[in-house]
């Protein structure tokens, strides 16, 4: 059986700039892949292509066997996607917003109510269900976005910085949630926080300047007696420093 998420030679060019360059990897059920890289490395663009929001320039990706270019609606049906910054409609209440997502996803009546209730329970949002989202704190807003991602209990999850802006307790909660879901789902999370990789991920994919530089387990990465931090800096800065040095010398 093919993996739930398959990325095949995915490439995105914006004019002459190549944001994502020939990226390939696969994520199977039970795996949590930490997608790492410096800002601007192409993490978000890759995830947007997986979610069908950005059209690839070359290559493709499949989610649950559906091609993101040819069958975008089928992909979106079996994928839970948390966009960067977890955008939501500020004037809506939490339950109103989740009800809207449920209806768009085709749930009606008591099934829609059950789905919304379950998503709110998973993300501990019951206490604020009738509050407009704009009145909530950053942590709660992020959780509303997470609830939207989990509403349809998708087999594949793609989350762009799910713990960004959360306090340590909230981060812990989100990680617990991801860990609990991990056995029956294929999950990709992007993050800047390296400790997170050790905490929840079964695999780490590091990308720099649009290319995959490492695809390994967190343990393998740390193996040669270095911390994850050092490895990350070496891999992502290593070759980027050369042009910078060259520029200083020329000046």
């Amino acid at each position: 059986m093919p993996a739930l998420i398959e990325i095949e030679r995915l490439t995105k060019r914006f004019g002459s700039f190549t944001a994502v360059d020939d990226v390939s990897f696969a994520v199977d059920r039970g795996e949590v892949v930490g997608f790492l890289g410096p800002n601007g490395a192409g993490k978000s663009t890759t995830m947007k292509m997986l979610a069908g929001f950005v059209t690839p320039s070359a290559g493709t990706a499949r989610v649950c066997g559906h091609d993101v270019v040819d069958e975008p609606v089928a992909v979106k049906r079996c994928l839970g996607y948390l966009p960067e910054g977890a955008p939501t409609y500020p004037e809506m209440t939490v339950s109103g917003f989740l009800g809207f997502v449920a209806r768009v996803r085709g749930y009606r009546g008591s099934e829609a109510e059950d789905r919304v209730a379950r998503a709110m329970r998973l993300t501990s949002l019951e206490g604020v269900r009738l509050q407009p989202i704009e009145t909530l704190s950053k942590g709660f807003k992020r959780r509303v976005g997470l609830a939207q991602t989990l509403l349809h209990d998708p087999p594949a999850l793609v989350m762009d910085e799910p713990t960004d802006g959360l306090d340590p307790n909230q981060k812990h909660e989100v990680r617990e949630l991801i860990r609990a879901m991990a056995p029956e789902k294929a999950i990709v999370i992007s993050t800047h926080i390296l400790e997170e990789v050790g905490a929840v991920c079964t695999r780490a994919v590091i990308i720099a300047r649009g290319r995959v530089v490492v695809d390994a387990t967190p343990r393998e990465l740390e193996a040669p007696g270095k911390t994850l931090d050092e490895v990350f800096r070496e891999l992502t800065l290593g070759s980027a420093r050369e042009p910078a040095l060259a520029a200083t010398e020329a000046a």
Partner: protein
Amino acid sequence: MGATLAVARRELAGYFATPVAYVFIVIFLVLSGALTFTLGGFFARGQADLQPFFNFVPWLFLFLVPAITMRLWAEERRLGTIELLLTLPIAQWQAVLGKFLAAWAFCAIALALTFPLWITVNLLGDPDNGVILAGYAGCLLVAGAYLAVGAALSALTKNQVIAFVLAVAVCFVFAAAGSPVVTEFLSQRIPVLAEVARQLSVTERFGGFQRGVIALRDIVFFASFIGFWLFANAVAVDHRKAD
């Protein structure tokens, strides 16, 4: 269809969750009423009909409708919710249609709230209610035409002011195309274009409805006009969504 209606419902509720809806409705009712009774000479004409009201509606819509549509896509882009909306399992045309239907329903509500004018003419005299009904249908189609233009232009920019100004300008072209100033100017220089301009004029088409004539070709015109701009809207959303 369910997803389209879910989008439309959310959008319509969104108007009423902010002061936008109330400000729009109040301004529309005040201006349409005031113009009808003052400049329109509602009483002085001595006729029981709504012609003075219908004369002003397309020109009021010219400024008010772009105020509704300017936020339609520009706001989604600014908030980043466009990424959420377009990664839900709906086709792009469903999102486009849902938003358009919501804005159209909102205009219908605003138009329906002018019912006191209709009651007034019926109390004062014995108007031809068929003509009035045709006039209202025409107003709704004009609103739909302007909405489709405004929505498509809103999809091109993140900036609501730009969306508004562009929409007013483009709607004005289609409103003024049938006016004597334009057609006379064109018929003296490029006679072929004068007829084209008249055919494409939203106000010229509206004139038929105002006289109580619902012609198939006018309905076809509005349907294809709206269809064309909704298609342009979908193309614009598709090309500029990730910018």
